[in-house]
């Protein structure tokens, strides 16, 4: 039997109680909405991460940095730069710059057609300059970019599908007077890798933008943003990459990607093997009564 006084303060008045309860309910609802949102966000991010991991094994600019650095090391160049075409302004924008002033030059732009980089971008023809210092204007753009005037330059276009999306440039051949046509061909292969990586990172950037839009849409009331929620979502997204399970998943995705790149037969074989293994694990878990999802 209920005591009518139980749960109420001795001096409570009914109006205050109703208001307090209403506030508690609203708070609970908000919490629930937040939790549900967080769950949906987590699921969406996990999916996005997996998709982008399959497409681009090391996320974002990291892969491009790696490609440019490896190209510079293998071809023995002192410095390197990767530019992307900004279609709107018809300029080349530094995306990766390996050199002394790498960070501060990323805002620097080169008009299409100018300098060797700009010329390679419009002609689509790989080019090398072996006496860049004799005509400083050729080197001026890149010199500002990497913080010194190079002696020689090797530059190839980045072509994705059939579009020129940028250029990859190496500076100052080490151990030889200038870059060779062999170097040009090798750099061409790196340029192909970079072009694919760029397209994939653009795709994942689109995912990030999409995510941002979603956050905007789910904002509780029009004109009343929920900064905390959005901040939490962003923090969550930022920390995802530092997460150990995420990194393991990434490694797995990278392995799968290598197989997928081999062709359709290999992909099918991989699917069959993985599906078989997953089925086996599920069956084993069911038989032993253990949860089948994680060890």
């Amino acid at each position, binding site marked *: 039997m209920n005591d009518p006084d139980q749960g109420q303060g001795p001096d409570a008045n009914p109006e205050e109680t109703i208001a307090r309860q209403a506030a508690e309910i609203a708070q609970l609802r908000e919490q629930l909405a937040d939790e549900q949102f967080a769950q949906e966000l987590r699921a969406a991010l996990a999916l996005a991460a997996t998709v982008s991991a399959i497409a681009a094994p090391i996320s974002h600019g990291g892969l491009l940095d790696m490609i440019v650095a490896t190209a510079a090391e293998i071809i023995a160049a002192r410095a390197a730069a990767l530019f992307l*075409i900004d*279609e709107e302004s*018809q300029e080349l924008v530094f995306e990766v710059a390996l050199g002394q002033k790498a960070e501060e030059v990323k805002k620097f732009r080169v008009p*299409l*057609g*100018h300098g060797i980089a*700009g*010329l390679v*971008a*419009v*002609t*689509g*023809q*790989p*080019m*090398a*300059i*072996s*006496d*860049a210092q*004799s*005509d400083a*204007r*050729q080197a001026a753009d890149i010199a500002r970019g990497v913080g010194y005037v190079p002696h020689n330059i090797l530059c*190839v*276009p980045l*072509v994705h599908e*059939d*579009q*020129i999306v940028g250029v990859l440039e190496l500076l100052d051949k080490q151990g030889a007077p*200038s*870059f060779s*046509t062999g170097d*040009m*061909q090798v750099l*061409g*292969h790196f*340029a*192909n890798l970079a072009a694919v990586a760029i397209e994939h990172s653009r795709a994942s950037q689109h995912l990030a933008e999409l995510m941002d839009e979603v956050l905007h849409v789910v904002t509780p009331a029009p004109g009343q943003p929920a900064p905390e929620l959005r901040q939490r979502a962003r923090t969550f997204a930022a920390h995802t990459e530092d997460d150990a399970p995420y990194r393991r998943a990434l490694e797995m995705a990278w392995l799968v990607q290598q197989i997928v790149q081999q062709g359709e037969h290999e992909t099918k074989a991989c699917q069959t093997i993985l599906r078989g293994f997953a089925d086996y694990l599920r069956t084993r878990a069911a038989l032993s009564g253990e949860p089948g999802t994680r060890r």
Partner: protein
Amino acid sequence: MSIGRPAWSSQFSEDELEALPPVPHLDDMTPAWAWGDSTGQGVKVAVIDSGIDADHPAVGGPLSGYVAIREADEEIIFDTAPHGDDFGHGTACAGIIRAVAPACELYSVKVLGAGLAGRGTVFAAGLRWAIDNGMQVCNLSLGTTKRDFFALLHELADLAYFRNVMLVTAANNMPIPSFPSVYASVISVACHDGQDPYIFYYNPHPPVEFGAPGIDIRVAWRDGGWITMTGNSLSAPHITGLMAKILGKHPGLTLFQMKVILRALAANVSNK
């Protein structure tokens, strides 16, 4: 009832059949026979590129014509006023051509310069202009990778072949097809590491059929400057210059005859 002669056979009828001069024996084709002291005089050569700086000492004299092509409001504009070269690339090509064929009639067909937008269309318009305006040799040290232009450029390359306009294209060193350098109706050139403009090679495995100097070549550049450069862009004009020289001595050669002559004179032929 008589059966009508198919249209394409009429030129082989007795009254219309054209009498042609004999083709010399392949072994008789020597540089002295092929170009001798020809300077390329009277041969119309178009450089379809970034423009030409006619005042550059490497170009060595006035041009015979100019056309700068651009796209504005979905219209193609042809401007025949004299122009320069903001990039240097076209001047480099013109300098190489004039070094071999100093008296050839040079035409600057400027298709680079107005940014990338509509570039394929402008490039095709430049090629069309060269075909329609009686150019004999066109130097194309550039191309497009865009598949959208495959058919249009193919059609123009065939039209050029039928009108006996010879297209000399720089092959692309990248593992990507660049149009029109991969068509059979053009002369596709890549670089070898020699410096002698008269030494070139033949490759019996197309699309790249000829090799010409293109490594560490000192070339004219913008604002009267010079640079030392490597690229197939520089190999094509070497062959363009030689062809202008050959046409100066043997007007009326067709592209397949030209290919035979170049094949016979290639430095990797065993009797050389």
